């Protein structure tokens, strides 16, 4: 295995949980799968479609997202929205994320040692 592959694997692992957090925050405004994908990627939160669509389904099953079919346009689209429990989870995850970020920063500057 070359170094790039190793790096890529670790980066992927680091990002895995953040995609959930990003979805929960972003979907406080309802949107459909492809639009969500585009907006996350344009923000630099890189996520694969084959990861995102199953993830949306799973989050809905867990009651963290609610969904509604929008048939106003030519093609029906499923709009997802963060549910109240999803919102709570987003807050908890975001807090944890910041805590880890702080801790890493302190480790890096040497304050904690």
């Amino acid at each position, binding site marked *: 295995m070359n170094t790039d592959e190793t790096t890529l694997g670790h980066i992927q692992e680091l990002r895995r949980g953040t995609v959930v957090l990003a979805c929960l925050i972003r979907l406080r405004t309802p949107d*459909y*799968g*492809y639009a969500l994908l585009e907006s996350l990627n344009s923000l630099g939160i890189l996520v694969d*479609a*084959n990861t995102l*669509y*199953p993830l949306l*389904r*799973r989050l809905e099953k867990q009651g963290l997202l609610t969904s509604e*079919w929008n048939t106003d346009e030519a*093609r*029906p*689209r*499923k709009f997802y929205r963060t549910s109240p429990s999803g919102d709570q989870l987003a807050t908890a995850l975001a807090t944890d994320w910041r805590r880890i970020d702080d801790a890493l920063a302190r480790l890096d500057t040497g304050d904690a040692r």
Partner: protein
Amino acid sequence: MTTLTDRYVWAAARTLPETQRAEFGRELRERIGDVIDAHVERGAAPADAEHAALVELGDPLQLASSYIDRPLQLIGPKYFLTWWRLLRLLLVIVVPLAAAGVLLGQLISGADIGEMIGSTIGTALQVAVNLGFWVTLVFAVIERSPGASVPVSTWTPDQLPQPRDDARAGRLGDLIASVVFLTIFAVAIVWQQFGLVWIDGERQPIPMLDPALWSFWLPYFIALLVLEVVFAIVIYLRGWTWLMAALNVLLNLAFTVPALWLFLSGQLFAPEFVEAIGWPWGQASDITVTVIVFLAIGVTVWDIIDGFLKAARNRGGSALGGY
């Protein structure tokens, strides 16, 4: 006319439970439509765009699996260790038992040696393959039943193996030698019943040992051989101790004393056998008898001394030899 999209959706949806198909199909169509639109926006022809979109989505079966969290492995990490431990346990117990059973059956029915080895190995292989298949099948089914809750084997520190030290590795050779020798001995005791003497290339139905001994002594010796196997296994696991050396004395005496007594009082061999091999029993055979008796006693005494020597060596033993 069915489009590529229709075919793709059908291919992916048919592997799902029926209740989820309609909703899944609708979601998938939305996704494919959006990807096609993106390709068209970038300037592709609609037909090419559809093709490209489906290539992007990849294998429909894999896609469907990712949507419903269906495992793409036979046995996942949740059950793998349980499966592996159970399979190993069954293989270690059932295969030797089945092989021994067949071997015994063949011995009793008096099959020739080639047939005996062949059918024993054949049965062992069959049993092993069957065990592997059925155990794995059951676990693969459990892996795919969402509601099933099988108690996953919980690990406790008691299951920790003893570090395999050099002493035990050295004893493995002794164990194998003992078990092989004792098995052959036991088989020979049964086998001799069907005759060991060939005259003009034909096996004579003359037992070597007196058949009257089957009422007590031969079963007694076979039982003793079984005990010796158990003893050899315990030695392998625990090593020699003074207690084991003492038990070794008892086992040796229990075997050699009755055997010598039967031999010397002329009860051991069947009279027909003695006659068939033309052994001048009770005449010029004094030297032969003396040699045999001394050999038997010598082997026994050596075995006893060997036990004590090993026990003595073990006492000074290595840091790991604390058991």
